[in-house]
């Protein structure tokens, strides 16, 4: 059986991303390891406290020789424009989660709204990545 363990997200600044995902979104740190033998590569993962087997890897954009300067710059630009990716989060209560995160300073780009599939909202992380926060409510019958 294949399962999802980690999914990777590029971030502009790991410290800034760590503060955002833990202090504002309310996730916990799963791993924060810096490896001097690998050019101080920092393996940094976060995840929801109640969902232990899935986490997000907050990956810094590397420089040469891992990634050439031009690619790194293109990646930074694409991310800053908001096209680098989306994380889809779910919640039992979209309105309550919205109030909670808003109270901690998260700026929402979409406030909770009723949709055919549930109640949906959205915000961005400091890097420009899009985060959805959805209370999924499928109709019993189609």
């Amino acid at each position: 059986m294949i399962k999802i363990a980690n999914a990777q997200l590029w971030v502009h600044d790991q410290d800034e991303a760590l503060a955002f995902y833990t202090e504002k979104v309310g996730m916990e740190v799963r791993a924060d390891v810096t490896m001097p033998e690998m050019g101080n590569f920092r393996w940094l993962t976060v995840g929801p406290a109640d969902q232990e087997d899935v986490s997000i890897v907050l990956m810094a954009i590397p420089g040469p020789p891992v990634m050439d300067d031009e690619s790194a710059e293109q990646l930074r630009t694409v991310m800053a424009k908001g096209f680098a990716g989306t994380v889809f989060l779910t919640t039992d209560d979209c309105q309550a989660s919205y109030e909670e995160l808003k109270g901690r300073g998260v700026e929402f780009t979409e406030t909770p709204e009723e949709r055919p599939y549930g109640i949906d909202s959205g915000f961005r992380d400091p890097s420009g990545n899009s985060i959805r926060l959805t209370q999924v409510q499928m109709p019993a019958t189609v």
Partner: protein
Amino acid sequence: MAHVPPARHLLRAKDLADARYFEPLGVDDLARAAGLSRAHFSREFRRAFGEPPHAYLLTRRLERAAALLRATDNSVAEICFSVGLQSVGSFTTSFSRTYGQAPTAYRASFPPASHLVRVPTCVVRAYGRPQNRTFREDSGPVST
């Protein structure tokens, strides 16, 4: 702290248009969100996203209006005001130019069953936003 790419500030302006299109928002407000002068902002926004900010804001409003036409029975005037536009006449003109038919005809062309399609809103908003159509010559490729 790594240097913040300039495009991140432009994205703030784009997000503002997406978040508060229903308010009487204009390019000046978007420029302020990006922290740039209006002229500089319009140029940089177009360079980054391939279309001028006023066109982005208008097509966001038209996309939301089209969604409301499909999903509600609100009147055309109500929908016009609820997406931040202030003139029903201009709305009808912009909508017809963009979608190739008037708002009422557009609504009539969708069966009520369309509400059963369960696609995430972010997808609806991103892929449903129309290409801006204008009779002026400002919709061509970005010249550098």
